[in-house]
């Protein structure tokens, strides 16, 4: 018997009891819909975390003063004065996997404009900071080598600072004068908006030349971080090792001693976040899959009822020449039609549901083709798994008994 006839027979049998078919399908619809929606939430979280970490700069190694090692009493990372601009320049000069290196010294300071004042993060950075940390100006300009050389009093503001000082987030205060720790600075640019990572508002920042920060504002000659941009993701590990060797040499650290600095690999951070979101996706998807399983049990239940109700029909079909295989495939196709139809409706609902969630709850969701294929495959598998037992019961019926069944 051909597949088309099987499907026709199945659709007719289901159509004879529409309400029952729809209620049975509902289990699968809800199950598949839930799987698609939940997985889209998990994958959306994963994508948005990766994207946020990437926006801090790609292929990034961060060198911080102080050791993250175990044992003893240690000061917090960044509190030591061991890293200098010379370290950064040595990394640029001596390690070939490196594309660019930026150094930063930052501290919180009081900033005043007219009657407004705000306490914000003032970062002295080198020019490469733009490239290494993906930080660019949208209005005005960044400072130049000449500004660094002359310790110019120029500042580039983040959007939040613009809002705090000038009362309007969209203001373009190029040329205005602000005071940082009572030192007058000219605003020459406004940074591209980056948004917040958790509670950390990345637009609440003022960038000034590193030399200006070190000499004019804070009176220090060390840096708080060196950012190293590596050429390719594959070279991250070797670059990390070489930076470590270089800096240990420069800082005269004997083998076996702890380093007086710590290197963080951005790839590790991404991997950690992705691991977390992956687990979340599996958890959400797994919980949703339970409802699909319950839907499958519903199919089995109804198929068993259907086999009993149609015992006589099975007898008639066998008498006129249906084989066990014909009957088996008839009922299996019926279960499959139920689960696949439910699966497709559930898929549409799931896609719609994740759209609604991203629109109204503001969560980022991502419906990947793979998750759709997975959901429908899973629905079909549920149909076969829970349909096979009732179908076998039907196929095994003795035609003589079945024909006499009332």
């Amino acid at each position: 018997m051909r597949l088309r006839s099987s499907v026709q027979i199945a659709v007719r049998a289901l159509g004879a009891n529409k309400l029952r078919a729809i209620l049975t399908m509902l289990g699968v619809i809800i199950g598949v819909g839930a799987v698609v929606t939940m997985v889209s939430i998990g994958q959306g979280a994963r994508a948005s975390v990766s994207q946020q970490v990437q926006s801090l700069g790609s292929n990034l190694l961060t060198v911080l003063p102080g050791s993250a090692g175990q044992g003893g009493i240690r000061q917090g990372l960044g509190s030591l004065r061991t890293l200098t601009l010379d370290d950064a320049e040595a990394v640029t000069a001596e390690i070939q996997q490196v594309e660019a290196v930026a150094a930063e010294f930052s501290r919180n300071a009081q900033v005043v404009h007219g009657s407004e004042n705000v306490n914000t993060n003032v970062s002295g950075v080198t020019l490469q900071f733009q490239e290494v940390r993906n930080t660019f100006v949208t209005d005005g300009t960044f400072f130049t080598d000449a500004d660094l050389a002359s310790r110019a009093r120029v500042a580039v503001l983040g959007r939040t600072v613009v809002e705090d000082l000038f009362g309007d987030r969209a203001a373009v205060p190029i040329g205005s004068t602000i005071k940082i720790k009572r030192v007058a600075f000219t605003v020459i640019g406004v940074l591209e908006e980056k948004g917040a990572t958790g509670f950390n508002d990345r637009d609440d920042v003022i960038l000034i030349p590193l030399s200006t920060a070190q000499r004019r504002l804070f009176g220090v000659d060390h840096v708080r971080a060196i950012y190293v941009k590596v050429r390719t993701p594959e070279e991250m590990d070797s670059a990390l090792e070489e930076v470590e060797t270089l800096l240990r040499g420069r800082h005269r650290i004997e083998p076996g001693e702890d380093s007086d600095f710590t290197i963080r690999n951005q790839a590790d951070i991404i991997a950690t976040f992705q691991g977390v979101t992956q687990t979340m996706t599996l958890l959400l998807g797994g919980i949703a899959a339970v409802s699909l399983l319950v839907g499958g049990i519903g199919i089995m239940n109804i198929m068993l009822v259907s086999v009993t109700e149609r015992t006589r029909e099975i007898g008639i079909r066998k008498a006129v020449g249906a084989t066990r295989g014909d009957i088996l495939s008839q009922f299996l196709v019926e279960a499959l039609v139920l689960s696949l139809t439910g699966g497709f409706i559930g898929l549409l609902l799931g896609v719609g549901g994740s759209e609604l969630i991203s629109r109204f709850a503001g969560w980022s969701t991502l419906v990947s083709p793979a998750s759709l294929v997975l959901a429908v495959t899973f629905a079909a598998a549920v149909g076969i798994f829970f349909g096979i037992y009732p179908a076998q019961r039907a196929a095994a019926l003795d035609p003589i008994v079945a024909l006499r069944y009332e």
Partner: protein
Amino acid sequence: MALIELRGITKTYQMDSVEVQALRGIDLQVAAGEFVAIMGPSGSGKSTCMNILGLLDRPTSGSYLLDGQDVSALDDVALARIRNRRIGFVFQSFNLLPRVPAIENVELPLIYAGAPDRRSRARAVLEQLGLAARAYHLPTQLSGGEQQRVAIARALITAPAMILADEPTGNLDTATSEEILALLQALNDRGITIVMITHEADVAACARRYVRFRDGHIERQEPVERRRLLHRPEVVRP
């Protein structure tokens, strides 16, 4: 050569711990083109014999030659195929699928045969039996006689060698019974072998030969004297 040849057929059922011997050695030959009525009281084994003839059941021992082929050794798929191609069933309770129209009931064997032109062939057979106007009625919308004629159309559609009729008039009134019997006689005239179970002597009298069962064996078999010949409709064998 006989169309049907049963040799020493026995059938034993295991009912709980009791063995029931339904058939105790049946030897029966039916030639092609015969019309045989099987009679006997309830429990005489005639229904069991009919199930074995229809390949719905297997004998415990003995052999069954259908057209010279020993079918007692065949597997389920082969038996289903023979039921489909060579045997047409007519039941007392019609046994039509309740949810599909007459014409699709008639098509049913062709679906399992994988045959082409199912719809037009079914329509042709229904027309033959005067049911063209009823083709798209559900069984519940048909009278008993019409339902039985649809069942006969279903039995005929694969052009089988024989029709096995199990009390085909048992659920019908006298006039309708005569109609069905006349139809069976007409088909028999066209060369279709018919084996029919019945309780009633005047139904059996429509056959050419009758066989009487008692307690699991054949008590008597002889040609019907004074056969009742009914006014037979014009039919063409499909």
